């Protein structure tokens, strides 16, 4: 081995490490299907065999809209999303057994943990708006994905705008 070469400039070591580990690795956690992760903002297609259409599954229902968008660095509910929040609030008041999770998201820039806080603040915005409209808080959980689960990849303005978002997810869907 030529030591002069080794320690002049940049040394790059390529390490081929087998993933087979001698130490125990916990069993993989339950895999999430793509549909349950990506389908949170979309109502499932209506089942035409049913005579009574579940409004949660009706693509033409106002409840089919499940995403609330926010301005850059903001967590205030914009006027254009107040009808959406009102529609879901009405449904939840009529279906006291139904629970939802409001998932807050952020764009991709900055501290992961601080972004988790920002996403939480956005999720809490919708939760509090629903409580003001009379929804029982026990039906609601506000959580954050921060910048960890972007719907749009990258740092473009369009991607960032898409990721500054809450998703409303009905339990059991």
């Amino acid at each position: 081995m030529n030591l002069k070469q080794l320690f002049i400039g940049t040394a790059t070591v390529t390490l081929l490490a087998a993933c087979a580990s001698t130490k125990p690795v916990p069993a993989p956690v339950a895999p999430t299907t793509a549909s349950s992760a990506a389908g949170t903002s979309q109502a499932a297609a209506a089942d035409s065999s049913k005579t009574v259409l579940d409004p949660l599954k009706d693509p033409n229902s106002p409840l089919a809209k499940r995403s609330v968008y926010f301005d850059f660095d903001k967590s205030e509910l914009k006027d254009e999303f107040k009808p959406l929040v009102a529609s879901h609030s009405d449904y939840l008041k009529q279906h006291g057994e139904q629970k939802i999770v409001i998932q807050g998201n952020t764009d991709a820039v900055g501290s992961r943990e601080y972004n988790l806080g920002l996403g939480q603040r956005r999720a809490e915005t919708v939760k509090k708006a629903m409580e003001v409209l009379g929804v029982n808080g026990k039906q609601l959980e506000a959580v954050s994905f921060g910048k960890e689960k972007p719907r749009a990849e990258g740092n473009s303005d369009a991607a960032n705008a898409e990721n500054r978002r809450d998703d409303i997810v009905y339990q059991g869907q």
Partner: protein
Amino acid sequence: MLKLQTLVKGLMTLALVLGVVSGARAEMNVEFSVDGSAGRYAIAIVPFKDEAALPTAPTPVVRTDLALSGEFRMVDGSSVANVPFDPTQIDYAKWQAAGAQAIAVGKVVAGAGGQSTISFRLMDVGRKKELTSGQFTVPQERVREVGHTIADMIYQAILGQPGIFNTRIAYVLKQGRSYQLQVANVDGSNLQTILRSREPIMSPAWSPNGRFLAYVSFETHKPVVWVQDLATGSRRAVANFKGSNSAPAWSPDGKRLAVVLTTSGNSQIYLVPAAGGSPRRLTYSDGIDTEPVWAPDGGTLLFVSDRSGGPQVYSVDTEGGTPRRLTWQGSYNVSPRISPDGKSFTYIRKNGGEFRVVIQDIAGGEGRVLSTGYNERPSFAPNGRMVLYASVVGGKSVLYAATQDGGSKVKLAVINGDVQDPAWGPFNNP
């Protein structure tokens, strides 16, 4: 096992293949490189007598370790007409002419039952005096560990401070939608996957005894704080309350965790017993309080809060009280970590489009920039002499370990994935 590739434009690539289990299906390419100025202290590590018979020779491990510390410059011994294995064989004049301030020599003696005895002596070239020495009898699979220990002893003998070559780092490897929480030695060896998930994993935090990792996993479709025993793999949720649970940080005595909960309707810092129990709220603000980290004395926490507008670093007594703001430059200062001596802290400061790694005295001052560009989550080496952080280069997240002056940087990258959210572990390596 060591394959030397060609020198191209002053860049040198060394392909070191280790830990390859025959028949292993999964292979991961880790790129590990030392970049930057030559270290201050010139040292020669002569290949030990009969080390070539071992599957892993110890001196390449020692050289790589000392080089990655950024403190040492390796003296090229190939042109010195003296190959000593013992101090009596050292031609000091020749090594002095080659620029060496110290020289390490040693030998390997094969013993019974696959054991090998490795001995070395470190000599001061100018004074011809021994600086340190050691002898280790180990099975062959532990020779790498001995190499790290020898590097630690040389580091200690010359710099008067403990080396970090047997310490570990934790980080999250992201490959598409697949996440792996991994632990590796600082030189990239002994890589273990602690947890695999299809959902995000973030914020690994080492327990002070090096036995447990706390982390945030989204496997239940929300952030929950888990603590996992690295030796057994057993784990449990320590913060799984309604809302989001995140940002775990261990107290120096390992008995408590600071975590962020949202049960009050915003992100606030709570203390929970590591053994399980009720959380006690520590911070009270209308804003986001997050990223807690304990000072070494256990009496103070640093954390991030946007109570005054943008996120800034504050300190607060662990018994409560009014937090004191520590960062005043810029509108976005996040991800603090305190140095092992408790005197300074590193954090990320937004400056225009850059997210810089800064080191600043707790007592005050401007702070100095360690890394420009886009960086995340710095943490100190347990001896305080390097900082580990994630850096996005060419759209890819890699790790850097940099000396405090930024003069030398070691890169850890994975060819087909992002390495993110690093945490440098403690001296304790059970």
